[in-house]
């Protein structure tokens, strides 16, 4: 079963598409990193999934339900932590938890209390006085205590310092290890997420460029090097994500369609970070044409 199913999903603000013709399946039980540059449509995608915005085109299915039509049924089963994790700044931590209890039928109060205790936060402390990292932790606690089947996190660690980032991800991994939860988290960088995630979706120019299990992604990409040459023959069989030339050498990063048989290319494995970087700089041909025409 898929926790998240997007079919031709699009969202337009004015004349600009924030997300366009996005088709994607996120299998249940996975931890998926949604990676893309700022403005690629990550936030829009997550907000569509949690029902904060309505699609302009296509459809989105979450746990087999529609976020718009079935909000009442779906909301208790989905946890969401928004970018910059806005909390009620005037509330104390205890009041934040009470809000969670009042607004969520499946609220797990014991879990919430236990997490706050482990963070060594006083329940009477005002949320506005907490550090960014602590606020992120409280926001995550609020989302986890809903006992969601699907947890959506929008840039959860972007504003955190490295230590807070690690603590946040540790807490997230613990929750995941208890099982029964699908996680989709977005980020503009892959750093740190690699050890948490098993699936990867790369979003840029308002479209998905790549989606799949991280192992498959790594296995299917290669770096090819050869004395300076025209890559046209390779491009006919394999998808060239990035090409760079020096005077003497041509280097390609390709998504290999089966084996690369051409003997004049030297074949190297490539790590995930480099693949992601290549995709972030990659614009598929039709979009480039459109950009020029526009």
């Amino acid at each position, binding site marked *: 079963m898929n926790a998240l199913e997007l079919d031709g999903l699009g969202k337009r603000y004015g004349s600009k598409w924030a997300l366009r013709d996005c088709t994607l399946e996120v299998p249940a039980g996975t931890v998926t990193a949604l990676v893309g540059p700022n403005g690629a449509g990550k936030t829009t995608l997550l907000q569509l999934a949690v029902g904060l915005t309505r699609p302009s085109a296509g459809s989105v299915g979450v746990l087999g339900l529609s976020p718009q039509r079935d909000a009442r049924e779906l909301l208790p089963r989905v946890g969401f932590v928004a970018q910059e994790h806005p909390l009620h700044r*005037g509330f104390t931590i205890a009041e934040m938890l009470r809000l969670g209890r*009042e607004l969520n039928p499946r609220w797990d109060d014991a879990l919430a209390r236990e997490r706050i205790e482990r963070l060594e936060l006083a329940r009477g402390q005002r949320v506005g006085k907490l550090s960014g990292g602590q606020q992120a932790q409280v926001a995550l606690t609020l989302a986890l205590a809903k006992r969601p089947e699907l947890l959506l996190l929008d840039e959860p660690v972007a504003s955190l310092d490295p230590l807070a980032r690690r603590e946040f991800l540790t807490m997230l991994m613990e929750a995941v290890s208890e099982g029964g939860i699908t996680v989709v988290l977005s980020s503009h960088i892959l750093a740190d997420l690699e050890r948490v995630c098993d699936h990867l979706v790369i979003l840029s120019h308002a479209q998905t460029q790549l989606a799949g299990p991280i192992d498959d992604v790594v296995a299917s990409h290669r770096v090819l090097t050869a004395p300076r040459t025209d890559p046209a023959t390779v491009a006919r069989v394999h998808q060239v994500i990035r090409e760079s030339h020096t005077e003497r050498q041509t280097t390609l990063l390709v998504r290999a369609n089966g084996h690369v048989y051409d003997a004049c290319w030297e074949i190297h494995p490539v790590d995930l970070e480099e693949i992601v970087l290549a995709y972030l700089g990659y614009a598929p041909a039709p979009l480039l044409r459109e950009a020029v025409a526009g």
Partner: protein
Amino acid sequence: MIWVGWRQQRTETLLAAALLAALAALLIPTGLNMASAYDHGGLASCVGHTDGGGACGAAVDAFVQRFRKLGDLLDWVTLVPGIIGILLAAPFVVALEQRTHRLDWTQSITRRRWVAGKLGLAIVTALVAAVALTLLITWWRAPFVRFQGRMDNSIYDDEGTVVAAYALFALGLGLAVGAAWRRTVPALFVAFAGYFAARLFVDTWLRQRLVSPLTTTWQTKAGGHVLDRAWVLSVNPVDAQGHPLHLAECPAGAGPCEVKAPAVSHFQAVYHPASHFWALQARETALFGIVAITLIAFAAVWTLRRD
């Protein structure tokens, strides 16, 4: 949602309560003082005989003089329903500005219920505060009103049902501007200015037209008893047939001129008698109430549709 809604507007509710408490602290002692002066001065027996002069006239004058300053101060109370309404619009706008509504909307509550809960609570609180204010002022003014009636704008504005409608209108304006703008401070300032402008327009122009005023003509020497406690819109000299006198003899630009006494035999007044009080109140309440409900509905729909 009730606890959450209450918690989110707790500060504003307490501020409104503090404002009312401060007013009560001023009005209850002076009101008791005034009621006792009224009882002991034997003023009750003077009601309706104020024109006769004599002991009654003097007693009433003394009473009115003694408490008039405070009464004038109370003219400012007409701003209070506006302040209460704007204040109670703040939590909703703050939530939209700080985007915490999205936190609430991604709990298990539907946004429709969230909007209904927040707005419903603000409406109820504004109405309760407005009714409390009305009762307080009406009780305090009761001795005055027995002599002067309550058709004067400064009294009419604080009594009856209009106060609740004003508060609701201010709330609606704050919510509507705030929902569209999502910047709390400027939105609420603009809303308050709008409230003030609307009240000014109704007080000075529209109210007198809500119900057709009456006209009466009397001989100069007879005096206009019928105007007692009435809201007099205009008094003009007329001839015996009731036609307005054209004061053509007056030299232009020479300042106020006196019409020769023999020419003016009659006066004509256009006025709202005291009996128009509830008709005027009902229409003005309906007017502000309908506008308020429209504004609140706009705020709700705009908030639900926009995201």
